[in-house]
């Protein structure tokens, strides 16, 4: 049986661990709040952009919504972008993304898939398994803002336009709530505006509204405006995916650390019970020795 001293040592070490996990939980909670604010702050722009594209499609439904980034071609070569975190200890956050990506690779073994990563964890995983990584967008989280996200999106768009790949997918944790994250594979390119579909299959409302709507006046021209709108929509889509991934990471870490703290508390109480029992047993044993010693002297 473990000695009293051993048990005391164990209790102390678990207490220290609990302190750390508790602190990490609080840090994640604070970061989560910031990340959620960033998601909310990005929402008006994304929605307005979406709305403008949709209005443009509806108001000039007679003309095609044409832009190279909207062009679909037969998919043979695909780029898969993984959004993982730089740090671990976030529960299933990274492994879920990696597992989903692996499943994608397995299911689409007939396609040429090249992998790019954001975040060290995904990069480490594929590198350690000898999988080639086309590009690691390292250090993006340190300076994550719209501009840095747009740079990544523009690079992916350039590969698409140069006909290096036929589609770009992003695998990331969609933020549902602080305790729920949802891994999704979302198509970044070619861009599929929800609105293009809406324009192709008019709903009763758009039909009813259509005669009342006059087409916009454009400056310099409809195409020139569209040429700027579409890349912007791609950029903002990736930016939002990144923001969601960051918020998910903090949420996942917060609940992982919450669980770890609870487990440590359970461990401490069971060790404390064991400690008291052992202490009692030692006292009893000593008493018995004294009594039997005294008995022998009689």
């Amino acid at each position: 049986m473990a000695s009293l001293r051993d048990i005391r040592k164990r209790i102390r070490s678990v207490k220290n661990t609990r302190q750390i996990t508790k602190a990490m939980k609080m840090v994640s909670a604070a970061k989560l709040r910031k990340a959620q604010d960033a998601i909310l702050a990005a929402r008006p722009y994304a929605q307005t952009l979406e709305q403008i594209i949709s209005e443009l499609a509806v108001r000039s439904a007679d003309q095609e919504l044409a832009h190279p980034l909207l062009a679909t071609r037969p998919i043979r070569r695909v780029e898969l972008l993984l959004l993982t975190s730089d740090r671990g200890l976030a529960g299933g956050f990274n492994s879920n993304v990696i597992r989903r990506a692996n499943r994608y690779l397995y299911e689409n073994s007939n396609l040429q898939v090249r992998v790019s990563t954001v975040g060290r964890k995904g990069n480490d995983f594929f590198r350690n398994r000898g999988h080639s990584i086309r590009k690691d967008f390292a250090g993006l989280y340190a300076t994550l803002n719209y501009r840095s996200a747009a740079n990544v999106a523009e690079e992916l768009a350039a590969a698409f336009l140069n006909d290096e790949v036929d589609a770009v997918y992003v695998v990331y944790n969609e933020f549902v709530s602080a305790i729920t994250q949802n891994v999704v594979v979302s198509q970044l390119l070619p861009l599929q505006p929800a609105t293009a579909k809406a324009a192709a299959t008019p709903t009763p409302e758009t039909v009813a509204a259509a005669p009342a709507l006059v087409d916009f006046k454009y400056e310099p021209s409809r195409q020139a405006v569209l040429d700027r709108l579409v890349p912007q929509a791609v950029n903002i889509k990736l930016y939002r995916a990144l923001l969601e991934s960051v918020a998910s990471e903090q949420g996942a870490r917060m609940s992982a650390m919450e669980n770890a703290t609870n487990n440590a508390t359970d461990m401490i109480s069971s060790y404390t019970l064991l400690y008291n029992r052992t202490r009692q047993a030692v006292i009893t044993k000593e008493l018995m020795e004294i009594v039997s010693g005294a008995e022998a002297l009689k």
Partner: protein
Amino acid sequence: MAKLTVEIVTPEKRILSVQADEAIVPGGEGLFGVRPGHTPFLSLVEPGTLTLIEAGRQDRYFVAGGFVEVSNDKVLVLADAAEHVTGIDVAGARRRMDEAQARLKDLNTADARYALEQAAVRREAARIRASETR
């Protein structure tokens, strides 16, 4: 009298949402004014100064390019960046402009980065001009 609703949003936050009598926007082909009843209009926005007129008073914002949509007396400005003219960091803008100009000197006009740096110079120059109108 009818009023315009003017909103300026950037990817990182909503800068402004106010009522105004008139808005003067730096459009893709020069400044244009918007008053209530304007025809639906979709334009590019160049780096420049956006002026709002409300009850005879003017208020100015710097916008760093983007789009503007005018419909139903609503002016929606989607800008890459925007700030009130009093909030402009002039020294920072001047420094960024000088840096971009220095990089431009070493670049060939055919280089893809040339256009980017040139846009940066134009943007910062517009920012400095905007700061002078306050």
